């Protein structure tokens, strides 16, 4: 056993160093080089907006409070959509805190009698979900149209155009990117004003 231990020391130390250099330094640095050269947009967080003044990332959800915008899902990341504190609520299925929160959120929607799309009153796993379901978007059409003085049909058509479909029909779910649809909404306003 002692010989086994003695013969192990040099390879263990040398291999630790060599693997650390290869896997911990060379591998991530080489990938960073490849990413920055070939995919600079994605490798830096898929940021959109005027150069130098990003309004967000297409991949990361953000909070919308105004009636003029489509709202994202409730978020458990920090105080809501905190990009430095991704998290789910971690509330269990029979949790009173969960039931109370959902009941509160339903009340805030002011739409008694209509079944509520489940994603609109549940928190996502990351707290940064950029999407809502098409149902959740259609659910908000009336409020957005009223706040903007637009025809509901016009807003509904915008939702229709903004739905992303599952890849090959089965990979993923139909969804609407909230930041992108809200930017299009602002676009409609700008066109009319112009």
């Amino acid at each position, binding site marked *: 056993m002692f010989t086994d231990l003695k013969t192990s*020391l040099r390879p263990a130390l040398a291999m630790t160093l*060599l693997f650390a250099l290869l896997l911990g330094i060379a591998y*991530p640095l080489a990938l960073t080089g490849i990413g920055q050269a070939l995919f600079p947009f994605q490798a830096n967080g898929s940021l959109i907006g005027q150069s130098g003044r990003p309004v*967000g990332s297409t991949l990361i959800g953000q*909070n919308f409070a105004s009636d003029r915008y489509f709202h994202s899902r409730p978020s458990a990341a920090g105080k809501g959509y905190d990009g430095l*504190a991704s998290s789910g609520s971690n509330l269990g*299925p029979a949790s009173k805190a969960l039931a109370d929160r959902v009941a509160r959120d339903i009340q805030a929607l002011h739409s008694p009698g209509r079944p509520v799309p489940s994603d609109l009153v549940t928190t996502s796993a990351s707290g940064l979900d950029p999407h809502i379901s098409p149902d959740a978007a259609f659910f908000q059409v009336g409020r957005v149209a009223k706040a903007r003085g637009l025809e509901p049909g016009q807003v509904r058509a915008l939702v229709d155009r903004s739905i992303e479909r*599952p890849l090959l029909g089965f990979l*993923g779910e139909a969804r609407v990117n909230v930041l992108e649809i809200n930017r299009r909404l602002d676009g409609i306003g700008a066109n009319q004003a112009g």
Partner: protein
Amino acid sequence: MTFQGWLLIAAFVGLLLILVKPVGLWLFALYEGRRTPLHGLLGPVERGFYRLSGIDPREEQGWRRYAVHMLVFNTALLLLTYTLLRMQAVLPLNPQHLGAVSGHLAFNSAISFTSNTNWQSYAGESTMSNLSQMLALTIHNFLSAATGIALAFALFRGFARRSSATIGNFWADMVRVTLYLLLPLCVLLAIFYMASGVPQTLAGPVEVTTLEGAKQTLALGPVAGQEAIKMLGTNGGGFFNANSAHPFENPTALTNFVQMLSIFAIGVGLTHSFGKAVGNVRQGWAILAAMMVLFLAGVAITCWQEAAGNPVLHHLGVPGGNMEGKEVRFGIAASALFSVITTAASCGAVNAMHDSFTAIGGLVPLFNMQLGEVVVGGVGAGIYGFLLFAILAVFVAGLMVGRTPEYVGKKIESREVKLAVLAIAVLPMAILGFTAIASVLPAGLAGPLNKGPHGFSEILYAFTSAVANNGSAFAGLTANTPFYNGLLGVAMWIGRFFIIIPMLAIAGGLAAKKYTPETAGSFPTTGPLWTGLLVGIVLIVGGLTFLPGLALGPMADHLAMVRGQLF
């Protein structure tokens, strides 16, 4: 569940089965030390590693030497990580100026990553610098995976060799698996992830001004490279707190699909390599069949329960499946499927929060881990864990007919059975023992977020995940405390190495045995009868011990959920 959901499961299983043979043959070439097409490019690196470490790759090792070298190497890596984390504040590539990682958290994380568990008591984006993510954590994702595969190779040699005193060379196995399998595949996967939107930068967080004028700060980093090996090596330690649910780790349904496949790819391949190693590929397919029976049963139950949804929310006027803790782009089916895959294998990455699953939907991931993660399992660890159950299964079959059992040409005698039982018993003893301790001490009871039976489930899940080296969590548990970091750290070490050592002892003993040819009286270890016996042994020996614990946690939780009794 929707038709689309079933189609997803069918596509996953179909593609997985296509992967079995090519991955298995590639691994078999590495097992044999044969030349691969990559040797032209990476051969000089391999030889350089041997020369600088003073190793002769052809020098054979007995099981004791193999075990000692493996242990010393893993200990060295553990110390490196502990040191780097403690010194984080003064090291470069720390754009957020994060402070040193606390002693108990560094202890926990170092063991966690060394043991292929990747339990995370911390939130990555607010705790670990870019250097820590790369140098202290990512290297373990490669090396703990390579260690698992090397150990599986050692056990294969035990079955395959005749009257041999040795089971291979640990260093040669490590270097070959890393250079010719893990590294090249991860480069390809990482490029795909980057193209799909996963960041890879050394810069710090970026601030944006939202449409409503608020500030939002987005954490970035060298994510893609870590993501690739995190899944392929069944590690599961994410860059961000939300792991594969975070859009920067797993931005699309396609990346999600690739992640699910890469969790299982090496594990299923190894069943085929085993068949090749013992000279009968049907032995490998028989094992895979038993794994798939257990896997599909779990998938069906979790998908059904999650799609059925939470009656508590239905009463409030929210119909449909359970979307709490799930991402819209994945939906119910891809979240439920991912949860079963990640716990069947010893991955532990999550794309949905298991803590918020329905009670029975969350029971399946818990039970998968308690079976010892032998349903495909971690890279290497899954197949050697499963072979321990195979030894028990032939023993039970031998008892029934009253003759000395044999398996793939080796007599299974009292030493093998005792050691296999010793390894398998580690799981229930450690999981239930530690859970019992945490359930009575104030420091343990301070952990759970949820009240009632679900709070107990959080504790049970934590120790199950630690001992089984999974790393997923019912994440409501506040685990970053000296009590949990310390106890879970010990649990992870026991769960890894207290199984490996008896397993290597079996490998050494088997290698020394003569070949016993199959006769008319041998119990056939291929075919449906054998597959059925394996499934039965895994469920009865592996699973039954945990029934009382599951009754107190998820099953009680389910009854509460159905009756609308809230905690």
